[in-house]
């Protein structure tokens, strides 16, 4: 394995800036890795080889000309295929957008380009970000680099797999109900859902607009914070963007001191349905944090048990509205014959996959007259009660912790046609989306039963994203110290 692909983003950008290695060499090494392994992982839907090398040449030329380089100079980033990118297709994992080239650039990818990052390709995902395994992709699933017979999680599974397989040191995802944290957890890497409104949704194809949050993936906590910082901040093009300073996530990731920090264990997120190996690693990690000086208490958030049903009313309702734009008239697939309305219905039937159809119809039902108050209206009230649970908890503690997801990566096909079983993967992550808080997944060991990675879930109040990185850095430092190497180096799925 080429040493460049194992390096952190922080070290790569320092080496490129110092002139120890060129951005072209870094990019070529990652393209070579993609060539070597992506036939087995299928993390990417599109690899921008030529374009990535030309972005890299521009960085090298800027350095040669003595121009200042950005904080991610020469660092390859894999981009979930729902960020619009000029010059590369954007499919959202859907056949309805096959071959579509967006006419404008998303704010987040624009900021990465300005920071000197190399956009190396677009990653696989559950269609329109609806799913927890990438099996709902219109282009076939991605595979977990730890065990190719297992899912990489989802919906941002391609991004998580790309980072875990050393195809890119950084990746972008979006998290609507857990779509960054759950794949990060089951692939043994770090992933953050920033505070809602902390990162721009402009140019992010919409699934559920009140929940969708772009965020970072990386193999270590500091790299995750670096990407978090570069991609975040107020954007006038997104009316829900928060006009406030970006939380000091990089400083927090370099600090990692949890002494005196008040940590609350959410007792509602445990019990039946949680894999023993997941709970064992979780309990040990809480004890570890206590040994590092954190003050740990248990507390209950009584409405969290209604978060999953509320989410599966709110998210499908918003999606049934957002996906009305895919009508076969202005962009994307058009198929069938007859009137515009008939063509629309045939195009949508041919272009959308089963899960997207399920959710559009579920949302249409929840918003129907006669059902609105009982379903959508009630779910919005439950959302308020969940926010009140968080407010009460954060009046007593600085952060909350739980497992990220009740099980390790499941086997491909195991839950593919059982929607309710699939939805349970997001049991612990959904409350954060409903409340608009920030949360992170950081690796905390391997489950005894199957040797697959487990993540610790840390939740913080809105705009307190920095607290996540203090806890995550403490966990990472302690585990790496104990093992003598990063957890990910124990992955044998690809490089036995």
């Amino acid at each position, binding site marked *: 394995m080429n040493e460049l692909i194992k390096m952190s983003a922080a070290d790569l950008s320092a080496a490129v800036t110092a002139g120890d290695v060129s951005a072209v060499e870094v990019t070529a090494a990652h393209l070579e890795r993609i060539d070597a392994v992506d036939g087995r992982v299928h993390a990417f839907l599109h690899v921008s080889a030529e374009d990535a090398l030309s972005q890299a040449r521009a960085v090298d030329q800027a350095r040669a000309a003595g121009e200042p380089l950005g904080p991610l100079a020469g660092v390859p980033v894999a981009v979930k295929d729902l960020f619009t990118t000029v010059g590369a297709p954007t499919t959202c994992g859907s056949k309805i957008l096959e071959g579509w080239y967006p*006419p404008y650039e998303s704010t987040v990818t624009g900021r990465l380009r300005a920071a000197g990052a190399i956009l190396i390709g677009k990653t696989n995902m559950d269609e329109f970000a609806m799913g927890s395994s990438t099996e709902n992709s219109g282009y076939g699933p991605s595979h977990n680099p730890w065990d190719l017979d297992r899912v990489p999680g989802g919906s941002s599974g391609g991004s998580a797999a790309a980072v875990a397989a050393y195809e890119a040191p950084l990746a972008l995802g979006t998290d609507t109900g857990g779509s960054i944290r759950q794949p990060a957890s089951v692939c043994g890497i770090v992933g953050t859902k920033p505070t809602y409104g902390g990162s721009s949704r402009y140019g992010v194809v919409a699934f559920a607009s009140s929940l969708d949050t772009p965020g970072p993936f990386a193999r270590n906590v500091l790299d995750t914070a670096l990407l978090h910082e570069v991609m975040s901040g107020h954007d006038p093009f997104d009316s829900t963007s928060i006009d406030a300073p970006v939380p000091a996530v990089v400083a927090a990731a370099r600090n990692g001191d949890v002494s005196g920090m008040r940590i609350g264990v959410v007792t509602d997120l445990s019990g039946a349905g949680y894999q023993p190996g997941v709970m064992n690693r979780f309990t040990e990690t809480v004890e570890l944090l206590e040994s590092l000086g954190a003050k740990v208490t248990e507390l209950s958030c009584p409405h969290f048990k209604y978060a999953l049903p509320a989410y599966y009313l709110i998210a499908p309702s918003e999606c049934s509205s957002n996906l009305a734009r895919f009508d076969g008239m202005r962009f994307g697939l058009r198929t069938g014959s007859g009137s*515009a309305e008939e063509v629309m*219905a045939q195009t949508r039937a041919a272009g959308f996959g089963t899960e997207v*159809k399920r959710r*559009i119809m*579920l949302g249409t039902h929840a918003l129907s007259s006669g059902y609105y108050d009982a379903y959508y209206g009630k779910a919005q009230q439950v959302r308020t009660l969940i926010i009140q649970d968080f407010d009460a908890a954060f009046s007593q503690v600085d952060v909350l912790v739980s497992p990220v997801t009740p099980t390790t990566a499941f086997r491909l096909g195991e839950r593919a046609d059982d929607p309710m079983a699939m939805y349970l993967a997001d049991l612990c992550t959904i409350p954060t989306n409903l409340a608009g808080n920030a949360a992170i997944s950081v690796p905390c060991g391997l489950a005894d039963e199957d040797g697959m990675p487990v993540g610790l879930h840390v939740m913080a109040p809105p705009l307190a994203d920095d607290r996540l990185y203090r806890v995550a850095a403490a966990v990472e430092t302690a585990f790496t110290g104990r093992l003598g190497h990063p957890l990910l180096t124990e992955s044998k799925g690809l490089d036995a």
Partner: protein
Amino acid sequence: MPITRDEVAHLARLSRLALSDAELDHLAPQLDQIIAAVAQVQEVAADGIPPTTHATGLTNVFRDDEPAPCLTPEQALAGAPAVELQRFKVPRILVEE
């Protein structure tokens, strides 16, 4: 309240999804199961609790109404399935009764 296959067919029409009989047979029982599960929200005592539509609490975000750069017609039409006279060309919209 269970949802019938006929109701699912109605939802498909409202959703502009021309589903086959096989798809309706497959999806109807799944939607029934999902709706039964999400109906749990009705157990929650929420009288007098205001709804949350959005977590940030932002309201009425406006900008000044000033001209700014935007897409050219060629860019806007570049992904269209059919174009004529610098416009989106669509199938007939009005249908004879």
